[in-house]
């Protein structure tokens, strides 16, 4: 179990799309765990290639990219890397300009209008609604308790994998599947570790 950045790199949740059955359990687990309103989409099963023969429904959330475009474009430095390599939003700095929403290639930033409860354990992770940017926090408080993020923990088909790049590489190899990322996306998400993940 990886709770912080280790020698293997930043721990992330990535999807194994070949196993996803579009049940929505990840969405429910996220909202229930953090007492989020239904309009909160820290993880969401989305339709990709909508209206085409390739249309498919897959879970998407923040991947805490090593070369996060959101961090680069945020004018107020509300988005920053934490010591463990994850990306966090400071609700006290965000102005809700949606620059991160336009910059993120994965659609992770959300801007819920509803007030998200300021649960003690949720602070300072994520924003609290009112149009401010909110995103997946990788369930950092759960990790500190030795638990996996709620979504990957409750996914019935193991379609959400959690771990450092080394661990993810091993899991993908065990399942004989590739990552859902193209080379370009993998470079954004994993940075220097991209070859290790995509090269399998």
């Amino acid at each position: 179990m990886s709770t912080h950045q280790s020698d293997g790199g930043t721990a992330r949740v990535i999807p194994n799309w070949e196993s996803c059955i579009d049940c929505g359990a990840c969405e429910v687990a996220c909202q229930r765990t953090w007492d989020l309103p239904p309009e909160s989409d820290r993880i969401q099963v989305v339709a990709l290639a909508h209206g085409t023969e390739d249309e498919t429904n897959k879970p998407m959330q923040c991947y805490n990219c090593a070369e996060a475009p959101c961090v680069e474009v945020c004018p107020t430095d509300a988005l920053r890397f934490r010591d463990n390599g994850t990306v966090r939003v400071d609700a006290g700095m965000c102005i809700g300009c949606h620059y991160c929403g336009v910059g993120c290639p994965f659609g992770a930033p959300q801007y819920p209008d509803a007030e998200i409860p300021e649960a003690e354990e949720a602070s300072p992770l994520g924003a609290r609604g009112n149009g401010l940017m909110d995103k997946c926090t990788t369930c950092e408080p759960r990790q500190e308790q030795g638990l996996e993020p709620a979504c990957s923990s409750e996914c019935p088909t193991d379609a959400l994998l959690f771990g450092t790049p080394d661990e993810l590489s091993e899991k993908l190899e065990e399942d004989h599947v590739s990552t859902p990322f193209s080379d370009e996306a993998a470079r954004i998400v994993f940075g220097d570790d991209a070859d290790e993940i995509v090269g399998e």
Partner: protein
Amino acid sequence: MATEIAFELPYTEWNWRIGVYIAMIGIAGGAYLTGYVADLLSARGNASEHGRIAKYGYLVGLLGLAIGPPVLLSHLATPFRAMLIPLTMTNLGSWMAIGAYMLLGFGLGSFLMFVWVTFGASRPHSPTVAEGEEGTLAADGGRDVASDGGAEDGPARAATGGTTGGIRGILNRIGLIDRLDSLADYTRPSEPIRLALGGVFAIFAAGVLVYSAMAYGSGATERVALWDKTFLVPVQIFGGLGAGLAAAVGLTAVADRSVSRTIQNYALGAAGLLAATLVAVLATVFLLPEQVPAAEPAVQNLLTTHATLFVGVVVITGLIVPILLSVGAVVGQRRDVISRTTATASYALVGLLVIAGKVALALAYLLAAEFTPMPLPV
């Protein structure tokens, strides 16, 4: 179960308010820059006519700033926090932060330059009896009398602080003119220093003009192919300059009743800049899909789904008609086949059309845009 939030169109992130914001700051930056050029040219002679363009260029710059940034703030979740620019806009790698500082400097500059050329007894470019330009002298000794809006004002008063122009007339009627005159005379530096400061502020205005292109998505991932900067920057720069100058000419024609030969030359200049904008827009339509194949769907959106807005309002109403109208009015005036009133109405109409076209262009570029689905192998 599945919904489509993650990969919706850019317009769902940035709605019409971003379009209005981008259009208005572009017009403002272009108007200031062309006004500043007129300010510099006034030193070469015929000061009052160049000065009119300078004054109304600075005013259009101010008006653009009065509309654009507040509309943007209304889009933000925390507008008051965003207004604390030195405290919040700390990431100077972000074009939004860069743009905020550019707007701050530009706002200060356009305000000061407008006040300095419009108010005060010793303001530059004010009409004098000695000025012999056609249309500036009347039988009573000074065209400024009529343009001041009051027959009781004579040339001597005009030269020493009269109510030159529509703006001064309006402010005179509401009793603010004396205070503004005092403020302007008290703060105005010498002419060389004023023009040098205007040059510094022009750098900010040019920055705002570039920012009006970069404000569309920029950063590590250029996710919207339609907003390719190679094509977008010329569109925004020529469009801002052309629309800004056309708006200043239109305002000058209406407010000061001035359609002199100098103003006509500026109208032709605006037509030239609008023609350059048209070329840049057409290059986007015909060349961008070849250079950036991912832009093909968005360009098709411009020509089909949003054809009324793009072809009808942007290209025809906002560019082609104003170009023809400007050139036609100038030619008509010089051949004495149209009246001053018709010419005034033409320049005013051109100003309105290009503003509408500029806003429509920004909206069309937002509405037609699509995210490039490059990262996901689906």
